[in-house]
C-alpha cells in the first residue's frame, strides 16, 4: 500500500473539497471492503483517502414525499433489516442478503456497493479496467473469462459487480451525486458507463463527486424480487442476478421491469422479456418464456456460455418469486 494522507471530514461539503478533480489523486473511503484491497494491490494509489463514514447526513433511511431515501453510508445489513425496506422492496433485501459475508454486510455500504470496482481478475492483476495487454488486446476475450460478460460492450468484457444495482434499476431508483457545484440526480442505470480506454472510469461520477444517497420511488403494489445464482452459501460473488419489478392490475402484469446483473459491464435491461409480460397474466410458462427472451442477443465468450442458462433461470425464478407476493 502506498502511503497516503487520511482525511476525516464531517460534512459532505468538506469531503467534496478534499477530493481532486483528477482521478487517482484521492479516494473515497466508506466501508473499505473493496478500497483497502485495491490499495494493498497498488491498483489504487491515492495520495489522500477521504473517509465519509463520519458524515451524519450520509447515514439513515428516511421516508420522503417521493418514497425512500437511503444514505450512501447505510450498511448492507442496515438496509436488509430496515422495516420500510423490507415491507415494500423485498428485491432489495434479497439482493443485500446475496452478499453472503456477514462481515461485508456489516461494513459494506450501499454507496460502496454501487461504486466498487469490477472483480475482473485481469483488472485486479493490473491489466486495467478493460483487461488488456500492452498492445491493447483484450486478455479477457481469449483468456479465462468464466466470470465475465455475455452482454459485453466492447472493449469492455468485465461484469458490473454491484449486488444492489439490478434491483435498484428495476425499482426505478435514482442516486444523488454531490460535487463542488452542488447536487444532481441520476437514474441508477445512468450511473454506469462503459469505459473506452483503460484510463476511463466505469461510473458517471467526476473524480470530485460523491454518491450521497439513493432515492427509491414508492413500490406499494409493485411485486418485486431478486434471484441470484451463486455457487456458494459462504462469501461468493454472484454468477448472474435477475431483479424484477411488476406493476399489476389484478393478476395481469401492466408493466414489467427486468434487470440482469453480472452479465455485462453495466446491468442489462431485458426489454424483450419485459415487453412479453405486459398485459398478460403471469404463469410459470410465461415466466420461463420471459427468461428465454431475456437471454436473447447474448454473445457468450469461450467460458461464459453457461450464463445464458443462468439468465433464463434467474429471470424465471425472480418472476415466480415476485408472483408469490401478495399484491
Amino acid at each position: 500500500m502506498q502511503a497516503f494522507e487520511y482525511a476525516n471530514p464531517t460534512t459532505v461539503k468538506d469531503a467534496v473539497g478534499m477530493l481532486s478533480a483528477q482521478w487517482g489523486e484521492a479516494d473515497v473511503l466508506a466501508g473499505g471492503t473493496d478500497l483497502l484491497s485495491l490499495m494493498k494491490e497498488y491498483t489504487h494509489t491515492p495520495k489522500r483517502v477521504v473517509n465519509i463514514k463520519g458524515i451524519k447526513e450520509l447515514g439513515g433511511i428516511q421516508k420522503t414525499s417521493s418514497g425512500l431515501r437511503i444514505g450512501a453510508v447505510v450498511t448492507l445489513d442496515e438496509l436488509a433489516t430496515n422495516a420500510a425496506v423490507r415491507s415494500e422492496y423485498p428485491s432489495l433485501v434479497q439482493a443485500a442478503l446475496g452478499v453472503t459475508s456477514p462481515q461485508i454486510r456489516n461494513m459494506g455500504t450501499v454507496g460502496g456497493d454501487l461504486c466498487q470496482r469490477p472483480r475482473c481478475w485481469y483488472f485486479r492483476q493490473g491489466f486495467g479496467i478493460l483487461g488488456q495487454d500492452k498492445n491493447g488486446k483484450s486478455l479477457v476475450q481469449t483468456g479465462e473469462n468464466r466470470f465475465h460478460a455475455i452482454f459485453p460492450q466492447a472493449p469492455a468484457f468485465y461484469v458490473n459487480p454491484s449486488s444492489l444495482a439490478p434491483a435498484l434499476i428495476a425499482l426505478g431508483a435514482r442516486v444523488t451525486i454531490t460535487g463542488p457545484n452542488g447536487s444532481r440526480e441520476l437514474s441508477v442505470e445512468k450511473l454506469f458507463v462503459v469505459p473506452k480506454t483503460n484510463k476511463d472510469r466505469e461510473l458517471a461520477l467526476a473524480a470530485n463527486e460523491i454518491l450521497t444517497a439513493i432515492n427509491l420511488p414508492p413500490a406499494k403494489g409493485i411485486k418485486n424480487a431478486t434471484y441470484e445464482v451463486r455457487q456458494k452459501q459462504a462469501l461468493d460473488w454472484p454468477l448472474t442476478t435477475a431483479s424484477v419489478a411488476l406493476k399489476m392490475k389484478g393478476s395481469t402484469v401492466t408493466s414489467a421491469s427486468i434487470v440482469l446483473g453480472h452479465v455485462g459491464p453495466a446491468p442489462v435491461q431485458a426489454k424483450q422479456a419485459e415487453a412479453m409480460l405486459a398485459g398478460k397474466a403471469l404463469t410459470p410458462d410465461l415466466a420461463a418464456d420471459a427468461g428465454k427472451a431475456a437471454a436473447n442477443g447474448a454473445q457468450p465468450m469461450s467460458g461464459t456460455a453457461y450464463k445464458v442458462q443462468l439468465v433464463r433461470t434467474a429471470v424465471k425464478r425472480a418472476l415466480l418469486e415476485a408472483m408469490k407476493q401478495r399484491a
Partner: protein
Amino acid sequence: MANYNWPEMKTRAVMGKRYTRQDGLEKSTGRAKYNSDLNKPGMLQSAFLTSPYAHAKIRSIDTSAAEKLAGVTAVRVIVAAGAEVNYQSQEIALVAATSEQIARDAVRLIKVDFEVLPHVVKEDDLSKVGNRAKPAGEQVTGDPDKAMKEADVVSEGMYGIPVLTHCCLEPHGQVSEWKGDGVNLWPSTQNVTGIGPDLAKNLEVPATQVKVHMDYIGGGFGSKFASDRWGVEGTKLSKASGGRPVKVFLDRATELNIAGNRPSAFAKIKIAAKKDGTITAWDSVSWATGGMTGGGMPPIPYAFTNIPNRRLNHTAVQTNGGPLRAWRAPNHPQASFLTCAALEDLASKLGMDPLELFAKNVQYAPEARRETYLHQLKKAAELSDWSKRWHRRGDSGAGPIKRGMGIGLCTWGGAGHASTCKATIHPDGSVEVELGSQDLGTGTRTIVGQVAAETLGLPLEAVKVKLGDNSYPPSNASGGSTTVGGVSSSTRIATADALDKLFAKVAPSLNSTADKLEAVGGKIQVKGDASKSIQWAAACKKLGVESASATGSNDPRNPKGLNTQGVAGVQIADVSVDVETGVVKMNKMVAVQDCGLVVNPRLAESQVLGACIMSVCGALMEERVMDNATGRVLNPEMEFYKLAGIGDIGDIVVHMDIREENDKRGIIGLGEPPTIGGIAAIANAVANAIGVRVPSVPLTPDRVLAALEERRSA
C-alpha cells in the same frame, strides 16, 4: 522389563475416551500464539520481490535505491542477473526493514530488467504442451488388448482434476534471529526436529546451533517440512541486520502461488468387464503437472490394484507454475477420483448398482484390505440409506433439483515414524513428557497425554505434554499420517520405563518387586491386589530428590506391535444438483474409516470431518486458474480460489470403524486416508444425479451445465 503392549480395549481408562483437545480453549479464545503472531523487540519486517512473469531471464537487477531507503536494514538478491525464473511469484529478492510498509516500498524501488521467455502454464490439453510433455513409458501387465476384445462391455471416459493450492490459513514463514554463532527460529512447520538441520545446512552453521520453537501451526497439509527459501534468506537478512529478528511470512498471493501446489491429474481410461461386473482389463493414458518437475502418475488403478490385465501410459508435463508440494495423501485423491469415476461409469454402462460393482471387484484389492472394504461398503450404505436413495443414473423425478449418490474409496499406510519421548516422573507426583514433535491441529498433544496417563494410571490432566521445541528428544516430521503411531509408541515406551523406575523405588514398601506392580486409578498396587497399594503422590515421594526419567523410542523397523500400517475407508456422498443453474449442494457425506486402535474417537472423528470438508472444496470449488497469455495465476486470493463455508458442507456423518479386530492391530495414522475418497464420491454422486459424467472437477456451475448441454446436443 516393562510390558509395552497396549492394555486390552475394555480395560482402558484414558485411551479410547472422547476427550476434547487440550489446547482447544487457547485456540478458540485467541490466546494461542502462532509464530506468525510473534512480535519480538526490535523485530524487522520483510517483503519479497517476486517474478511477475512465468518464465523470464533476469538481465540485470539493481537494488541500490531500495538499500538507500530509510528504514531498510538489508536486501538479499536471490536470483542473480543472468539466471532465469521459472514461475510467477518466484522469489527474486527479499528486503528487511523496520516496517512492512517500508519493506514493500523498498521492493518497488528494485529495478529488474527482464527478458520475457516463452511459458507453458496449462496442461489440461496434452496436445498443446509441445516439448513440455515427458512421457514416462508404458507399463503392461497381462494382455489388456485381448481382454478388451473379449469383454462383454468396455467403458471409456475422460477425467481431470486440476492443480490445487494448499491455502494454509497461516502462511509459510518464520521469525528468525541469527545472533553470534547461533540461530533462533520460530517457524510455521510440520517438522520441529528436522527444520533446524535443514536450515543449518543452508547457512553452514552446526545443526545444534539452530534452536526451534513452535507451539501452534495454522495448517500445513504436507507443505511445511523444509526451511525453504524464506527461511534461509530471512535468517541471512537477520545476520546482515546485526542479528535483529526478522519476520518473513508470505502474503496471500505468494502463499497461493508458490507455497503449495498439489499436482493435477488427467486420464483417459478404458475398462473392460464381464456382464456380471467383474473387471477384466484397465487401460489408461494419464498426464499431470506439478510445475517444472512435471507430475508423477497417480497410483492407478487405485485400490483395485490387481486388475489382471493393465496398460498404463503416463506423461509428466513441465509447466511454469509454482513447485509441487506434498498434500495430504500425495496423489491418492487424484488416483481415487480417476479410478472410482471410471468404475462408476462402468457400473452405469452395465446398468449395475455401483455398490455391487465395487464389492464384486474388491477381489482385486490387496488381500489384507478386502474384508475391511466389504464391511465398510455395507456400513456406509447403511448410514447413507443407499438402498432407498440410490437410483440408476439420472434422477427421473420432476423439477430441476436432482439427487444422487456416489462412492469413493481410500487406502493408506500410516505406520508410526521414528520418534523419541522423554518421560519424567517428579518426586512431587507431577509428570512431564517431552517430544520434539508438533501438533498440527490434529490433537497430538491430547493423545500423547492420554497414552502417558493411561500408562501411569493417572487422569489426563496429571500429565504435562511438551511439544514444539527441538530441545526435546527428536521426532520425525508430521507427514504421511505417521505422527500418531510414532509419538504414541515412543510415549508408551518412555512412560512405561519411567514407571518401572518408580516401581523399583516403591516395591519395598509394598513388600513386593517392581515386576509385580501396576499403576491403576492414581495408585500403585500389587497386580490384582488393591489392598496392597500406595497413592501416586506418596509413591512419588519415595523418589527422594531424583526424578524417575526414561527415554523411549519408536523404531519403525520394530514397532513392537504398538503401531502398524494399512487402512481402508469408504465414503458415500449424497448431493442435490440444480440442473437449471448447475449448482451442486451437499446433502450428506458418510465416511467410514478404520485406523486400527483409536486413541481418541472424538479427535479421530474431527480429523475425518476436516477431511470431508476438504473433499467438498476439492470436488466443487478449488482450482488454480492459470492464464495462457500472461502466464499468471488469476486467483491467488480467497474470493475466486474458492473454499467451502459452513453452509456449503452439508451433513457429515463419520463412522470410525472401531472393532476389536482393528484395535488389535495397533495404532495407525489417520491424517491422509479420509481426504482421499471424498472427491470421487461427490463426483460420482453428481453423475448419478444428473445422468451424465462431468469429466473434470471442480464441479462448478459452468462445468455441470456444459456437461448437460453436451448430452442434450449429442
